[in-house]
């Protein structure tokens, strides 16, 4: 019996001594750690993608608290993370629009690519572009070894039946890993609200570009889109039309005139025309002044009207109307 008591007493006293020792040490060597850092670290997705420019999620959490880093840099976390972080820090959330990747090439599938030779080397784009400027005829187009898919940490790029890379808008977080992975610089991060894209990166002259594109959708540098654009968002850069997404209003006018269909407008069918609800219109003429195609008529202090024939559905008037009385129908 005594041996049981002895063992209980021995272990109990040992534990007590150690406990007191540790408690004393933790008081004496106490380190203040900002609890906010841990809280923010838990909110962040923990994939360590590096989109914020710091080596990992915990480094970003520390930077936010200790160095006043901006809180909207986490692409995978998105708006949800920003809001929670703002709550933890007690500041106002400044969300920035979600960006997704867009591949500026419509070639590169099994049956829409012209080949120079049958490439059988190492299966990476970086290796493929080294040999006589790549296996495909176009020197600017996709070389279909799918480095972007390998680089994507979110499983957001898939191959369709034709072997074309399709970006899943839901899964894409805009981290930019594929942008870095593409040796032809075909991929760009674009705000998700922008719908119209020039899906060609060829700087070849018109005839040459057309001849080399297996999809027959090369930008031939004709400049029609530049003339048609109501907000001057398109610029010719060395035989290639490039959209300035800051100015672009996704009206789709450029796509409607593009002779080679290198400009793609997925919402062409869905686009409506502006309609002014007459009761609320105060005749301020702001919409009239802002309309890029002069589709709105009316005089000061009188109800304005939209000419449905001219309206291109760009929604600029919807956004500028102070009474919020313009709808797209």
């Amino acid at each position, binding site marked *: 019996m005594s041996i049981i008591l002895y063992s209980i007493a021995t*272990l109990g006293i040992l534990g007590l001594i150690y406990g007191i020792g540790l408690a004393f*040490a933790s008081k004496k060597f106490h380190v203040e750690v900002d609890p906010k850092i841990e809280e923010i670290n838990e909110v962040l997705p923990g994939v360590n993608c590096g989109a914020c420019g710091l080596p990992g999620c915990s480094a970003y959490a520390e930077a936010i608290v200790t160095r006043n880093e901006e809180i909207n840099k986490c692409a995978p976390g998105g708006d949800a993370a920003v809001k929670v972080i703002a709550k933890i820090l007690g500041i106002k959330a400044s969300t920035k629009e979600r960006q997704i990747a867009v591949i500026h090439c419509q070639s590169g599938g099994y049956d829409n690519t012209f080949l120079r030779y049958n490439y059988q080397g190492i299966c990476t784009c970086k290796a493929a572009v080294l040999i006589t400027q790549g296996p495909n005829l176009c020197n600017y187009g996709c070389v279909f070894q799918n480095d972007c898919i390998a680089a994507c940490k979110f499983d957001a790029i898939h191959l369709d039946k034709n072997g074309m890379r399709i970006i899943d808008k839901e899964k894409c977080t805009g981290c930019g890993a594929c942008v870095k992975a593409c040796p032809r610089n075909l991929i760009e991060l674009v705000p998700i609200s922008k719908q119209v894209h020039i899906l060609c990166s060829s700087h070849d002259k018109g005839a040459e570009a057309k001849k080399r594109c297996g999809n027959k959708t090369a930008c031939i540098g004709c400049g029609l889109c530049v003339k048609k654009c109501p907000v001057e968002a398109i610029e010719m850069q060395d035989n290639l039309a490039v959209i300035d997404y800051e100015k672009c209003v996704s009206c789709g006018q450029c796509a409607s005139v593009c002779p080679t269909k290198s400009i793609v407008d997925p919402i062409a069918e869905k686009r409506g025309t502006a309609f002014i609800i007459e009761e609320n219109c105060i005749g301020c003429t702001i919409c009239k002044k802002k309309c890029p195609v002069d589709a709105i008529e009316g005089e000061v202090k009188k109800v304005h009207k939209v000419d449905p024939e001219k309206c291109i559905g760009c929604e600029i008037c919807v956004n500028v109307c102070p009474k919020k009385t313009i709808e797209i129908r």
Partner: protein
Amino acid sequence: MEFVSKIFAMAIVAIFVQNFVLMRFLGLCPYIGVSKKLDSALGMGMAVIFVMTMASTFTWLIQSYLLVPLKLEFLQTIAFILTIASLVQLVEIIIQKTAPALYKALGMFLPLITTNCAVLGVAILNINEEYSFIEAILNGFFAGLGFTLVLILMAGIREKLDKSEIPASMKGMPIAMIVAGCMALAFLGFSGLKI
């Protein structure tokens, strides 16, 4: 003189012939986990040397002056683990205050020493080999040295491996396992030493 030669033999045995990691296969977790970078491997090694020496000291005292007189030898494992855990906790608290950079580099591996079988192993071996107090402390120190040696060797090799061209499927853990095996084979050569 006899004592010095005995200590020398003990050092050779603890560091090379019966190396804790590669011959006794104790403490494999930090051996694979913390051997990615040379400086954190060095920090981990220092922590292990410190903890092993301290653990040898305290567990020997507890065994000789507490457990044996009270005839409670069967409490050896639990009493030793209690001692080691408290010791590691103490080391962690002190390092966090005095060397934050080292604390950051070791991260979660410091608490892992708590349940590291190498530390418990050296404590129990000291008792089984019936070492004297001084010998037990030195044995703990040498065992830690041996652990640090292979950890640093491994970290050096793995840093070189990171820069070399390895097939994608072998990168990281697989090649580390193979390297660990090769190192164990090399250390097997020391078992031919006659001491």
